[in-house]
């Protein structure tokens, strides 16, 4: 029992299981959306934090997941669960096709290419009226349901999303601590050394790109059922930036840190900034810059650093006292 309580995943799971009992009603949307965005951020954390490859087009993969679910459920009457699976499949396949050419580039160019991909997705969805509804998008998407059981209240959705997220965190943890995880970490710091260890760098980059797009597809599918609609403006570059920012703030190598950061940023963006309407983009941009300038290693490191600072201070004070006595 004591061992179990020391397990971080389990403690977090327990916390999440009981939190609906104490949480004020108005924070449920934040937790639900936070969980959905966290799934995408988790994929980004694998891609960016572990494998060191940037993507500013992940909003498009979320969008692909959302649109696949929306089209299949509303126009072809697929059951949600099947549409969910299809969403993961379609976003992975598109990531595979698109990843082959653009992963040949690095750094700024990869950022641009993925940004361009996001722009293509946006233009395509917003300008295509048949089937996907142009700028208006698709409405009337049913709630998520498994074998007839429908997740329609916030509490039900809370448990659904966080269960899926927990499963993905564990999956990601396993992967990070495996042969493949080591290969990704090797690629992120030193591609050349990694390749001389027998790691096929191009292949691994493509794999992690596809995997992170699959995470984004899951998030997109859940988002579609949560909002019950999809619109092109929901999947623009600001969402991609949001997800990358969550990974930076959460700390590049910390999965739960990324989840925490995503929830906080969701709260900030959807609860707080949205009150300022037109100014929200400006304030958000300023916050983004302040974070980058003052805590580029993420807020996780800020916590660590202040702890270190306190330890140093206390140590000094202690030495000072003992010298005097």
């Amino acid at each position, binding site marked *: 029992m004591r061992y179990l309580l020391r397990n971080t995943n389990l403690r977090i799971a327990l916390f999440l299981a009981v939190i609906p009992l104490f949480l004020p009603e108005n924070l449920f949307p934040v937790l639900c959306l936070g969980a959905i965005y966290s799934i995408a951020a988790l994929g980004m954390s694998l891609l960016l934090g572990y494998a060191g490859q940037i993507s500013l087009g992940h909003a498009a993969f979320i969008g692909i997941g959302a649109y696949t679910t929306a089209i299949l459920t509303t126009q072809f009457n697929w059951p949600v669960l099947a549409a969910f699976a299809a969403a993961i499949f379609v976003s992975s396949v598109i990531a595979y096709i698109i990843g082959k050419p653009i992963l040949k580039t690095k750094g700024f160019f990869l950022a641009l290419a993925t940004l361009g991909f996001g722009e293509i997705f946006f233009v395509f969805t917003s300008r295509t009226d048949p089937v996907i509804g142009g700028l208006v998008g698709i409405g009337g998407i049913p709630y998520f349901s498994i074998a007839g059981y429908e997740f329609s209240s916030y509490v039900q959705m809370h448990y659904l999303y966080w269960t899926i997220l927990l499963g993905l965190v564990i*999956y990601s943890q396993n992967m990070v601590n495996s042969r493949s995880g080591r290969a990704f970490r090797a690629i992120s710091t030193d591609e050349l050394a990694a390749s001389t260890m027998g790691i096929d*760098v191009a292949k691994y980059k493509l794999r992690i790109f596809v995997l992170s797009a699959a995470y984004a597809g899951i998030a997109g599918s859940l988002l579609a059922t949560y909002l019950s609609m999809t619109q092109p403006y929901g999947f623009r570059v600001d969402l991609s930036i949001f997800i990358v920012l969550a990974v930076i703030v959460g700390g590049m190598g910390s999965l739960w840190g990324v989840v925490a950061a995503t929830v906080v940023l969701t709260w900030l963006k959807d609860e707080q900034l949205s009150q300022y309407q037109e100014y929200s983009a400006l304030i958000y941009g300023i916050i983004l810059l302040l974070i980058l300038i003052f805590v580029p290693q993420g807020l996780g490191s800020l916590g660590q650093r202040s702890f270190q600072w306190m330890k140093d201070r206390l140590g000094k004070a202690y030495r000072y006292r003992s010298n005097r006595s």
Partner: protein
Amino acid sequence: MSIFRIEQLSKRFSGLTALNAVSFSVENQTIQAIIGPNGAGKTTLFQIISGVLPPTAGSIYYGEEEITRKPPHKICAMGIARTFQMIRLFPDMTVLENVMTGGHIHWKTGVFMSGFRLPNVRGEERDARQKAQAILDSMGLGDKANYPATSLPYGQQRLVEISRALASEPKLMMLDEPAAGMTPQEGEALAEKIGDIRDSGVTILLVEHDMGLVMEISDQIIVLNYGQVIAEGSPSIIQQDPKVIEAYLGTKDNNAQY
């Protein structure tokens, strides 16, 4: 029996000739040293053999197979491992993880399966860990396994790099200045380790500046200067070769003219 052969290998960088028609072969289970002044082309040679740089001309054979211009990961998979002149450990991994990464080619679990902690995945991981630990033990670094790799002193980081290369169970191992930055005592210990590695059946290609070490452990020495092989032979022959003394050790008698 020769395990490895280079024929007429040349490399030019925008007008500068770094290697000029270099040919040699390496006998199985020997230590072959390549020496020469800084910039003579030794590191370039390693870069080409390990597939990091393409040669301008010439070919490389490993056993009977030609490996010229193969990508680095394929060359590693064939049994050729290397270390780097400037240490290139993976900085955000522990010592053990670095060595486990070196054994990458020997395990199978793919990216998607590795997220599920199935029994065979766990077993593989355990084997990898044990093998890496065994290598570290043999290098005398067993107790440093869980340290962040770059927190070790310079000399030990070199040993970690060698352990990492060993983890791929190579037939041919290329060491690029393994003794650089080591104290004389560490250098001695290293010489012994390199001898052990050879005796365990690995052929070693060694670039090194520490002449004491080279003369002590090499079976055969090749001297490069200006991208060309100027001498080849056993340590005692090389030490007497006037061309080598001229190019590398410097001539004492003509100091007067400065």
